[in-house]
C-alpha cells in the first residue's frame, strides 16, 4: 500500500516538476541572458491560465488549443513591455535589483488586472477529460496532468532546440556569453533581448496553462509559483535550460514526497526552507551554468 502511495506521489511530483520546468525556463533565460530578474514571470503565466480559462468557458476551446492564441499574444505583449519599460533599466548599474523592483510593480499590476477582470475566486480548467483517468495495475493516471506534462516536455524541448539549432537561438546564447563580441559580429543586442523576453513570457503563458491543468488557480497563485521558480532556476543554474528541466524534476519529486508524508500546510515550509538552504550553500546552482 505505502509503496504504491510512494510511486503515485513520485509520479505526481515528476509531472509537477516538468510543468515547473516549463514555467521556469523563460525566467532562467531572461535572468541569464539579460540579467533581468522578472518577478512578473509567474504573473504572466497566471494571465495565460486565465485567458485559457475564458476561452474554455466562453468558446469551449480546449486549453491546449488556445495556446495558439495565448502564446503569440503574450509574445507581442511582452516585446512591447520590454521596449517600453524594461529596456530602460538594462543599462543601469544594478540591472538585477532595478529589474526586480520594476517587474515587482508589473506583477502587482498584472495580479490586480486579473482580479478586476476575473475576480478573486479560485478557478479550475474543467475540460471534458478532467477527472478522468486510466489505470495501470495499481496506479492511476489522470488525463489533464498528463497533458500538462507532455505539453511541458514538448515546450522545454522546443526552447532547447531553438537555442541550439536556429540562428536567432545561437545569437541569444552568444549575447549571453560575450555581449560585446556578439555585437561586433553584427548581432543586434536590443533585438535579441526583445525576442528573448518575448519568448520567455510566452513560455510562461504555456507553463501557466500547464499549472492550471494540474491545480486550481487564483489571482494570488503566482506568488507561490514564483518561489518555486526561484528554487528551480537557482538549483538548475541561471540561464541553463537543461539544468532548469533537471531541477524542476528534482524539486517536483521532493515536493511530491513531502506531500505524501507531511501535512499540506508544512509543504510550503519545506519549499521555502529548501530554497534558503540552497541559496546559502550554493547560490550558483547545483548544475553547471551555461545556455
Amino acid at each position: 500500500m505505502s509503496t504504491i502511495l510512494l510511486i503515485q506521489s513520485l509520479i505526481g511530483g515528476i509531472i509537477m516538476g516538468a510543468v515547473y520546468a516549463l514555467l521556469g525556463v523563460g525566467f532562467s533565460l531572461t535572468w541569464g541572458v539579460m540579467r533581468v530578474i522578472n518577478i512578473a514571470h509567474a504573473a504572466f503565466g497566471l494571465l495565460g491560465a486565465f485567458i485559457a480559462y475564458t476561452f474554455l468557458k466562453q468558446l469551449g476551446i480546449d486549453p491546449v488549443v488556445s495556446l495558439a492564441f495565448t502564446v503569440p499574444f503574450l509574445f507581442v505583449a511582452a516585446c512591447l513591455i520590454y521596449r517600453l519599460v524594461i529596456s530602460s533599466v538594462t543599462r543601469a548599474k544594478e540591472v538585477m535589483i532595478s529589474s526586480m523592483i520594476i517587474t515587482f510593480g508589473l506583477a502587482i499590476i498584472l495580479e490586480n488586472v486579473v482580479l478586476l477582470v476575473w475576480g478573486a475566486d479560485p478557478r479550475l480548467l474543467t475540460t471534458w477529460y478532467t477527472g478522468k483517468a486510466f489505470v495501470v495495475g495499481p496506479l492511476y493516471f489522470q488525463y489533464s496532468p498528463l497533458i500538462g506534462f507532455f505539453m511541458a516536455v514538448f515546450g522545454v524541448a522546443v526552447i532547447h532546440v531553438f537555442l541550439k539549432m536556429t540562428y536567432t537561438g545561437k545569437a541569444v546564447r552568444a549575447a549571453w556569453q560575450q555581449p560585446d563580441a556578439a555585437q561586433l559580429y553584427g548581432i543586434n543586442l536590443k533585438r535579441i533581448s526583445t525576442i528573448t523576453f518575448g519568448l520567455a513570457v510566452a513560455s510562461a503563458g504555456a507553463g501557466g496553462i500547464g499549472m492550471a491543468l494540474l491545480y486550481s488557480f487564483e489571482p494570488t497563485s503566482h506568488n507561490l509559483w514564483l518561489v518555486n521558480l526561484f528554487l528551480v532556476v537557482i538549483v538548475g543554474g541561471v540561464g541553463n535550460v537543461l539544468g532548469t528541466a533537471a531541477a524542476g524534476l528534482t524539486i517536483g519529486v521532493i515536493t511530491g514526497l513531502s506531500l505524501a508524508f507531511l501535512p499540506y500546510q508544512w509543504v510550503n515550509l519545506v519549499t521555502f526552507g529548501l530554497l534558503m538552504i540552497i541559496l546559502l550553500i550554493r547560490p550558483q546552482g547545483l548544475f553547471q551554468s551555461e545556455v
Partner: protein
Amino acid sequence: MIEGSRLKASGPATLALVVLMSAAVFPWLGPPVYFISFFYTIFMYICLASSWNMIGGYAGYISFGHVAFFGIGAYATALLMNVFHLSAVSTVLSSIPAGAVAAFVAVLVGYPCLRLRGPYFAVITLCFAFVVDLAVKNLPIVGGADGLWLKAMDLPIEISRAIMFELMLCLMAVTVLVSAKISYSRFGAGLRAIREDEEVAQTMAVNAPWLKIRAFALSAFFPGIAGGLHAYYLTYIHPDIVFDVNISILIVLMALFGGGGSWLGPVIGAAALSLVNELLSTFVKAELARIIYGSLFIIVIIFMPNGVIEFVGKMRKAHSAAAS
C-alpha cells in the same frame, strides 16, 4: 532632542523639534479619532521605512522581508503579555524587549544571509518572511492560525489612541534620529562604501561583515518595537495582518520613492505614500489602488532611480540634500 541639535545643521534640527512638539500637542486638541489614527499610521511607516533604509538604503542590501521583524515584535509583545500577565503600561514597555528579540533574530538570520548579494539577498529575505509567517501559522503555542488577543486599555478610544499616537511619535523620532546619526557617522560612510563596492571597501579596511550585521540588527530593532506597539494598538494580531508581505513591499517602495541614500528620503517617501495610500483607499477601488501602486514602482525606477528628493533637486538644478 539634545542629540538632534548636534547634527550638522542646527536650523533644520530646530525646525524638526518645532514640528515634533506641535505634532505631540495635536491629539489633545480634540481632533476626530480618524486623524489621530491616520497620523499614527504615517509615523509607523516613517519608522519602518527609516529602519529599512539603514540596511537597504545605506548599505544597498535590499531586504524584501522586513515585515518579519515587525511581526516578530508584535508576537513577542503579545506573548510577553500573555505569559507574564502584564498590565497596560508594562505591555507597552515590553515592546522594547520585543525589539531586542527582533534584533536578535536579525543577527541569527543576517549572519549567514548577509553573505549573499543583490537579488540573492532580496530573495532569501523574502523567503525568510514567508517561513516565519508559515511557522507562526502552524505553531499552536503562538496562537497558530487563530491569532492572539491582547487586553485593551480601559480608557475611552480618544485617550487610548492619543497615547498610542504619542508613543509612535516618540519611536519615529528616535528612529529617524538614529538613522540621521548613522548617515553622518563613520558607520554610515562604511555602509555607503559597501554599497558602492564591497571588495574595494574591504581592501580599504572597512570591516564589511561586522558593519552589515550591525546595520541589519539595528534595522530590525525599531520595526520590532513598532510591531509591539502596533500589536497593542490593534489588540488582536494574526499572521495575515502582521506578516503581510505587502507591508514589506510598501516599506521598500516608500524608502526608494523618497530616496534611499539619505535619512530624509524614507521620511518624505513614507509620509507621501501614506497620504497617497489613504486617498486611494478612500476614493478608488482596492484593486485599482494597487495598480497605481504597481505603476509607482515602475515610474520611480525609470524616472527617479535615486528618489524623489534628488529628482526634485535636479529639477531645481540645485545641490540635492541627499548628496552629502
